[in-house]
């Protein structure tokens, strides 16, 4: 545990030194990145110790104003530390490598808050005390806020930062009440006291729904997701990678931790998680399909994956209620693996979008295209990332989605109608989400990298420096390694699942593990075969059979006189069928002049679909609050004698109310 805390200390100290030398850009980037890497490496040692060799890493006492707070790293927090360490270090390398791209902003404050964010996440995972947890939770939000508003001279960045801070504060208010109730009924702030706390102050359901609300804001549950797309879009690429890859996972960590406190589960929790997750996933994907900003699409997809993880947790809860250990194991393993897989893919996609932004200088899908020729490596990495995030077989996300499917299938063992309903939702829901995700990411990848460039860029986009490619290469490696080694990865995950299930009385036998491991072995075998065969076939075809190949013809254009890049399918046209089918949910704006006149000169058509929940729920709500508050301001009108009148009225009111009573 000491090693873990020294790691955190190194990160913070490095960050503050980088902050001091803000003016010298390279020096501060170097210090910040190196300290972050060193800290992450040391933390990784402890995490591996606890996760792979299942050795107890001891406890540490921190003396806080409200009593001593224990710090301990058990299996669950070790697992959740993996995405934080992985993405934290890679994003640090990426940030250091791309520091020279933008001269305007001082990097000192950037590095300070970046390292603070990573350190607070690691501390959050290690804290086993409510007060320390809340402190780290808010420090994490504050650090993220400053990272998002790093380029604060742009109006929309400030807007995004404002929305992020308000949403995270509302979430933390929920957490305040949650930990207040828990510590009240347990009598102390320690997590291990919470385990067997009687439900004196508020029933288990209130505690669960408070946790769902508090952590749901950070995770992106459907009505609370409003801040998520903008914050991830307007933050820097590597920052949004860390935010979506690591910070939103802290929301899941908190949710799992609180669910471990509650000995008895209710069915209503499971159903809320399940249908909440489904709604989040489908809504996110439909909105993603009509977006025209590259990073906003990726942001919505992180919301979609959050939905999938919530569905998995819902299955796990219901499985524990119905006493189906096999299903619970598959669901929990699926959820945990999906958390890890999603942070890997999402990190890769955001770093890719950052590279695209450095190459082309814009995020608009309408004006991109044909980047594969000028940026081959980024194209390859982004391609693998988008195929992986869509949950397609040879890649890692499919493994975890398959486990969740498996959990849904195993529910049929029970035979009751609710079990059937559960498996129907899981199968149909995940099927639809899988299909839409494949649609969304083939569209994004196609529009950005393939075809011909829709707008000429000066200067023409060039490939990013090799150092910047390193994090992406590592992530691609991680994708393939998790995909192919998934059966062996299941062992540490099973230990974590056992630890999660223990308080709820779920004991997992060896054959539950086997029941999930067998399909995974087959899947990894198939994936390996598929990859090898495709590579082999393409290599043979390229070397032996391609002697007569010709590459100079234009694409088949049905004999059109003057084909140019503008005839390609743009993002609005690609998403037109979807926005047609789901127009009630998405409500897109249609801007465009009608084609008129015998020989029409000019016509343009553009659809735009801002987040419908934000537009129809929160903005009117905030406007209503403002309208309500305005008349009340007449209280401070400036007339002295009325002020004295307030005094007199207050006195008389109290006297009459209380004196009559005495």
């Amino acid at each position, binding site marked *: 545990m000491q090693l873990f805390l020294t790691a955190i200390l190194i990160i913070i100290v490095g960050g503050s030194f980088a902050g001091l030398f803000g003016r010298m850009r390279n020096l501060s980037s170097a210090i910040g990145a190196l300290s972050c890497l060193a800290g992450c490496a040391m933390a990784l040692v402890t995490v591996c110790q606890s996760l792979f060799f299942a050795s107890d890493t001891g406890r540490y006492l921190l003396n806080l104003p409200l009593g001593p707070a224990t710090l301990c790293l058990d299996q669950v927090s070790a697992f959740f530390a993996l995405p934080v360490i992985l993405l934290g270090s890679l994003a640090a390398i990426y940030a250091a490598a791309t520091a020279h791209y933008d001269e305007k902003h001082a990097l000192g404050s950037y590095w300070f808050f970046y390292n603070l964010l990573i350190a607070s996440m690691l501390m959050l995972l290690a804290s086993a005390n409510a007060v320390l947890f809340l402190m780290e939770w808010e420090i994490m939000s504050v650090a993220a806020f400053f990272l998002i508003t790093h380029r604060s001279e742009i*109006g929309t960045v400030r807007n995004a930062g404002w929305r992020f801070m308000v949403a995270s504060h509302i979430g933390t208010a929920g957490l305040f009440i949650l930990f207040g109730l828990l510590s009240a009924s347990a009598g102390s702030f320690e997590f291990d006291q919470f385990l067997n706390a009687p439900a004196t102050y508020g029933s288990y359901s209130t505690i669960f729904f408070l946790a769902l609300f508090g952590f749901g804001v950070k995770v992106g549950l459907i009505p609370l997701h409003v801040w998520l797309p903008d914050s991830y879009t307007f933050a820097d690429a590597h920052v949004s990678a860390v935010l979506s890859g690591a910070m939103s996972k802290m929301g899941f960590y908190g949710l799992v931790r609180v669910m471990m406190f509650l000995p008895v589960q209710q069915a209503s929790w499971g159903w809320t998680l399940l249908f909440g997750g489904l709604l989040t996933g489908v809504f996110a994907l439909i909105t993603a399909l009509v977006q025209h900003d590259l990073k906003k699409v990726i942001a919505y997809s992180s919301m979609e994956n959050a939905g999938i993880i919530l569905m998995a947790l819902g299955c796990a809860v219901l499985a524990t209620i119905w006493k189906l250990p096999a299903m619970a194991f598959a669901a929990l393993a699926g959820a945990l693996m999906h958390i890890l897989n999603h942070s890997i893919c999402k990190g890769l996609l955001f770093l890719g979008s950052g590279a695209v932004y450095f190459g082309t200088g814009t995020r608009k899908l309408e004006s991109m295209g044909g980047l594969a020729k000028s940026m081959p490596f980024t194209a390859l990495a982004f391609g693998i990332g988008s195929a992986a995030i869509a949950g397609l077989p040879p890649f890692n996300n499919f493994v975890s989605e398959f486990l969740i499917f498996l959990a849904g299938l195993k529910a049929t063992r029970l035979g009751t109608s609710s079990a059937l309903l559960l498996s129907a939702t899981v199968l149909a829901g995940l099927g639809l989400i899988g299909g839409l995700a494949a649609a969304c990411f083939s569209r994004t990848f196609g529009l950005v990298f393939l075809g011909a460039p829709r707008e000429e860029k000066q200067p023409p986009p060039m490939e990013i420096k090799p150092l910047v490619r390193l994090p992406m290469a590592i992530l691609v490696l991680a994708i393939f390694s998790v995909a192919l080694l998934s059966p062996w990865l299941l062992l540490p995950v099973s230990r974590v699942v056992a630890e999660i299930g223990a308080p709820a009385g779920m004991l997992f036998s060896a054959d539950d593990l086997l029941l999930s491991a067998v399909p995974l072995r087959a899947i990894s075998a198939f994936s390996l075969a598929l990859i090898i065969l495709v590579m082999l076939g393409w290599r043979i075809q390229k070397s032996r059979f391609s002697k007569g190949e010709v590459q100079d013809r234009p694409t088949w254009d049905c004999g059109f006189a003057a084909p140019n890049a503008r005839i390609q399918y743009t993002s609005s046209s690609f998403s037109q069928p979807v926005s047609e089918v789901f127009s009630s949910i998405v409500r897109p704006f249609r801007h465009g002049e009608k084609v008129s006149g015998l020989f029409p000169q000019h016509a343009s058509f553009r659809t735009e679909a801002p987040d419908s929940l934000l537009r129809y729920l929160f903005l009117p709500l905030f406007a209503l609050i*403002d309208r309500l508050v305005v008349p009340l301001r007449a209280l401070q009108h400036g007339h*002295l004698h009325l002020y004295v009148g307030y005094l007199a009225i207050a006195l008389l009111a109290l006297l009459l109310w209380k004196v009559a009573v005495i």
Partner: protein
Amino acid sequence: MNSIATLLTLSCLLLLGSSRLRVAIRMVAFQGLLLGLLQLFAVGPGHLTPGLVILSITSIVLKSGLLPWLLNKAMIVSGTKREIEPFISFGASMLCGVFLLAVSGWIVSTLLETDPIASPVALTCGFFLVFSGLLLLMTRRKALTQTLGFLVLENGVFTTGLSLGSEFSTMVELGILLDVFVGIFLMGIMLFHIDREFDHLDADRFNELSDLEIAATVVEEADE
């Protein structure tokens, strides 16, 4: 004790009704005088300690001597002779005065059910003076009359103190008296500043500092 209290209530009623500032200041001076005497009679003729005598003399000198002189000076300098149409007409404020007297009578009776005190009349007069002081502060336009209102309020508080018979050591009583005097003296100086700044003494035109005009700017949704 009771006779002085009734005199005080009468002077206060007159004050509520009078529209001319000169009369008002004289009334307040008279009240200061009555208050000094009340201090002597509150304890009863038997045990007059030297401290008590000094106390009443200083309060008479301050309350009916120095302060009215200052307020007169302020009145002359600012040239405001009469209180012009306060928020409620003088007749109405007289009526309010009577109503307040009834209310303070009711409060005193409810309070004194369990433990009676020396002179309930003085207590009612105290409450009445406090309420009419507040009424003056609330309904008059001129800053000068507001100071007078405050003075009446102070007198009311002192009479309640004396009627309840809760006397502290003379040093504390002197301190309280000194504080009140310095307070009103400061108000007098500020009256000169107000007169110089605003060249009028209408307190209700002091409403530059307010939060009325905050427009409800809705957080607009600006997408780049």
